């Protein structure tokens, strides 16, 4: 069946299979370059596959997964490729791992992370200023979670430490790179948003605005009205 007998087993292996196997087996996202160089090395080929060839293989693989009703997809995360399950099977995995709900970070951590993500490299003073509170604890916690890292000190008086987000941050948030961050909206845009009151207010304003349970009741009747 196979003409090229001497390298039979390797020759049968397509770039797509290598892509599939590496993104399956690796513990972190695999870069396109890594895939190309491993492929060229093992097939003893002088020519590296092009990045486009890998991207095409990703597309083909995902199309085949979808067509065949598979529960897996290749994702572009943190500048690399990674195999992960589809959202449709999440309830089954959550039941299996007994994970009661999807992950979220606490508000202080998330605010701190968002400020640094958009302003990076950024300092503690910048974060404190935006949040109006001391963010020392939140920054230390995010460093220990490997969502932030220190890249140096700013060349200004006091030489404050500069923080950036990590590859881990990109991967945990399903981003390929920082360009993938959602747009930071203008406050005017937020305040002028027609859906602002119903959907975002509770998130932006403290929940405490429903002191008397009133706005909570309002919200639920609104929901009824719109459904």
């Amino acid at each position, binding site marked *: 069946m196979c003409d090229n007998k001497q390298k039979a087993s390797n020759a049968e292996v397509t770039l797509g299979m290598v892509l599939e196997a590496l993104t399956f087996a690796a513990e972190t996202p695999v870069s396109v370059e890594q895939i190309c160089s491993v492929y060229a090395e093992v097939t003893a080929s002088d020519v590296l596959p092009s990045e486009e060839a890998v991207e095409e293989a990703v597309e083909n693989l995902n199309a085949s997964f979808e067509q065949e009703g598979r529960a897996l997809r290749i994702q572009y995360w943190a500048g690399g490729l990674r195999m*992960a399950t589809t959202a449709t099977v999440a309830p089954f995995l959550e039941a299996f791992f007994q994970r009661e709900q999807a992950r979220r970070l606490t508000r*202080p951590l998330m605010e701190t992370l968002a400020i640094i993500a958009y302003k990076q490299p950024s300092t503690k003073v910048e974060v404190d200023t935006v949040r109006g509170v001391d963010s020392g604890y939140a920054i230390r916690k995010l460093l220990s979670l490997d969502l932030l890292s220190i890249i140096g000190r700013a060349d200004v008086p006091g030489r404050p430490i500069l923080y950036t987000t990590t590859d881990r941050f990109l991967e945990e948030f399903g981003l390929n790179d920082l360009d993938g961050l959602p747009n930071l909206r*203008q406050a005017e845009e937020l305040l002028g948003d027609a859906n602002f009151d119903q959907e975002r207010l509770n998130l*932006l304003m403290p929940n405490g605005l429903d002191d008397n349970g009133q706005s909570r009741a309002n919200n639920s009747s609104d929901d009824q009205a719109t459904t």
Partner: protein
Amino acid sequence: MYRVELEDFEGPLDLLLLLINRREVDIFDIPIAQITNEYLAYVQLMDSINLDGVADYIYFAALLISIKARMLLPQPEIDTEEEDFDPRQELVDRLLEYIRYKDAAETLNQQLEERSRLFTRGKASTPAEVESPEKEVLVQTTIFELMNALRLVLEEAPEEETITIESQRYSIEDQSERIRRILFTERRVSFRDLVRGQTRSFIVVTFLAILEMAYGHEICILNVSDENAFVIEKGELENV
């Protein structure tokens, strides 16, 4: 000394947004005198029970008072530039900037939530450390609502000597232990019932014990708003 830190809850800008929103006033035209008075009432209560991190609140109290003072001053005679000069501008700018990042934080949190439903292989699928700082679930209300409840309960409490001297009598540890005993038999208990008929210092120390236990995931604080008080129940930590 207790370890309840306000920075784990809402901050002063949140309190301002809350007050502005509650009055349904325009953020670009804040009635500074009213908002300042309401803000100070919260901060005085926080200060009187010695919560850590109240300094951040006091900074904004000072800012509000200085804005209020400047607005009372007669305006300079230059009519043309009068509109450009609003002592509230700095505060408004900070609130608007804060809203932008709160919005971004919420968007990113949704993104994290969606992404966390996609599982990767093996160990990497359960980065337990990222799951652990899940504190918000156990406090389904804000520090400000809790302060409100505390204030109302304190108003009904019998008069006594100054809190600072009295509070030496009760320790957070003892109060935590008392709450644990009660929650051993009761599924949930309201703050009001916990401190019924007690002195002000007893109430304050119980309040602080609740904050600390909620922070440590030992109990869950639920908002039962119609009573203007809140309810606590056992948290989900098995090792407690």
